[in-house]
């Protein structure tokens, strides 16, 4: 007997609203239907009415966890449009904050994966370490999220000797603890029993469905934008691309922990080799007609911005595609044939940042705050119908969901 279970839009397993309609047979999932649009804020249309500096502010707010990836991608693209070369010290500091953000995002994800699997101890430990990273970011930029460090031509703040020393010291503690998590993540029996074999994504299917990021790398494809399409100074930094052949959620956990260890090495290299000089160069206000494609390896995968300018100080078109959107078709395939108990884990394994994935025109805010008068009236009408006096007849109401 088949029946459909709605997971979402509101569900404790999901940190942001998204609707997954699962068709079930017993406890096994037969089909999935993803409905998006609950977090849609209209960034792309809004970006056409704002100047480039204001857009830097706007793109930062696309997401909280990976905010720096959006500003860096945008700033890189606009620097290509303006044809200016950013300052070298600024590039180093920008990369330092990028890698710190990658560490904090992966530690957050490890905690969430532990919590979804029921392993709350792991969750508490990784988030305790994340506090160390957030303190470092606060020391460098003044904020724990939304660092506001980027500008066209470099970064806005400098770091001094004491800060460099503190970063190097914290790295020692963090490296030791992360190596311990690698041991737990791959050998604790109840945890591995929960993760192994869950959400399989074979290599050919991952390539066909255009998956990106750790989801792709855990299926054995060594694709990393920092290596394939080096931006900034990544061409000079020695690091390795981490892959795994397991193709399931356990592979994704291992890939992410390894990436965190690689990021520690990159941060160490950056702090030791920081050059002297200014942190930014001057950027023009108006940009002549040009276009740029800017790609960036966010913690979740490939982030791509396409910017087109038209000679004024506002962009003609800004197109943002965040990595989570690219992983949705792969998620649908991964969920088929799994148990209900594994839904949160499989979905969390792509590291969903749903607010990143939806930025077209705004229609209504999530929750009950309606800004369009049409649907508010509809909502009132439906509510009146549902709570009417003749409830005994039990008319089934079709919500617009």
């Amino acid at each position, binding site marked *: 007997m088949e029946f459909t279970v709605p997971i979402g839009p509101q569900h404790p397993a999901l940190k942001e609203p998204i609707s997954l309609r699962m068709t079930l047979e017993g406890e096994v999932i037969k089909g999935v239907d993803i409905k998006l649009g609950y977090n849609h804020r209209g960034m792309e249309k809004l970006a056409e009415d704002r100047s480039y500096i204001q857009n830097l502010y706007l793109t930062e707010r696309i997401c909280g966890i990976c905010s720096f990836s959006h500003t860096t991608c945008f700033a890189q693209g606009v620097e290509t449009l303006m044809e200016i070369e950013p300052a070298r010290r600024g590039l180093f500091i920008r990369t330092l904050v990028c890698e710190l953000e990658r560490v904090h995002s992966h530690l957050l994800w490890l905690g969430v994966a532990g919590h979804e699997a029921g392993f709350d101890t792991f969750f508490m430990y990784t988030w305790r370490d994340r506090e160390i990273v957030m303190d470092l970011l606060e020391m460098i930029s003044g904020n724990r999220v939304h660092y506001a460090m980027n500008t066209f031509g470099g970064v806005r703040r400098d770091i001094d000797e004491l800060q460099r020393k503190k970063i190097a010291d914290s790295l020692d503690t963090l490296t030791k603890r992360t190596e311990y998590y690698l041991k737990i993540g791959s050998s604790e029996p109840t945890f591995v029993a929960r993760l192994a074999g869950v959400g399989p994504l074979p290599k050919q299917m991952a390539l066909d469905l255009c998956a990106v990021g750790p989801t792709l790398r855990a299926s054995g494809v060594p694709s990393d934008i920092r290596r394939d399409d080096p931006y900034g100074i990544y061409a000079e930094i020695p690091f390795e691309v981490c892959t795994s052949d397991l193709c399931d959620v356990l592979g994704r956990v291992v890939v992410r922990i390894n990436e965190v260890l690689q990021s520690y090495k990159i941060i160490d290299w950056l702090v030791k080799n920081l050059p002297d000089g200014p942190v930014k160069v001057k950027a023009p206000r108006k940009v002549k007609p040009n276009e740029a494609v800017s790609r960036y390896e966010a913690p979740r995968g490939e982030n791509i911005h396409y910017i087109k300018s038209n000679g004024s100080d506002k962009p003609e078109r800004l197109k943002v595609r965040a990595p989570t959107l690219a992983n949705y*078709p792969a998620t649908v395939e991964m969920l088929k044939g799994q148990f209900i108990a594994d839904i949160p884990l499989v979905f969390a394994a792509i590291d969903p940042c749903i607010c990143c994935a939806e930025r077209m025109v705004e229609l209504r805010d999530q929750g009950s705050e309606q800004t369009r008068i049409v649907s508010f009236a509809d909502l009132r009408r439906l509510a009146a119908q549902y709570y009417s006096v003749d409830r005994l007849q039990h008319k089934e109401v079709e919500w617009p969901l």
Partner: protein
Amino acid sequence: MISDEQIMAQIKSDIGDKIADITIQAPRRIHLHVKPENLNMALAYIKEKWAFTLMSTISGVDLGEQFEFIYHMANLYTNINVRIMTPRSDPKVPTTTGVIPGAILYERELQDMFGVVVEGIPDSRPLLLPDDWPQGEYPLRKDWKWERPVEVIPGGK
């Protein structure tokens, strides 16, 4: 590892009569202009020859009289951006899901936002707009403006 110039020369010699233009705008950014009917042929060719399997996204720009769509393709060492133009009065593009199955969500987004008809798309439900969005309004066209509605405070002034 093949350089961008080699790829450009190879494309010109193999399918040069079917493409409109090919340029290199920056390191690792090749732009290839084709007609809409040759789109699938070009994508299949670059996928088979140099393993351009990742379609990053499909961007669209409203240029006034025409829409321009760019299909951003990537492989492990470079990018090719395949561009097509289609007139505003009759916006139609062929579907690319036969060559790249992962393009389905991006094509649904194009249909929502620009009002383009993607011929042969396997699943044509709207992706991002809500179910009670009025027909015929396409938000990313340049002539669609959004005005903030007057705020109504129930029970107040």
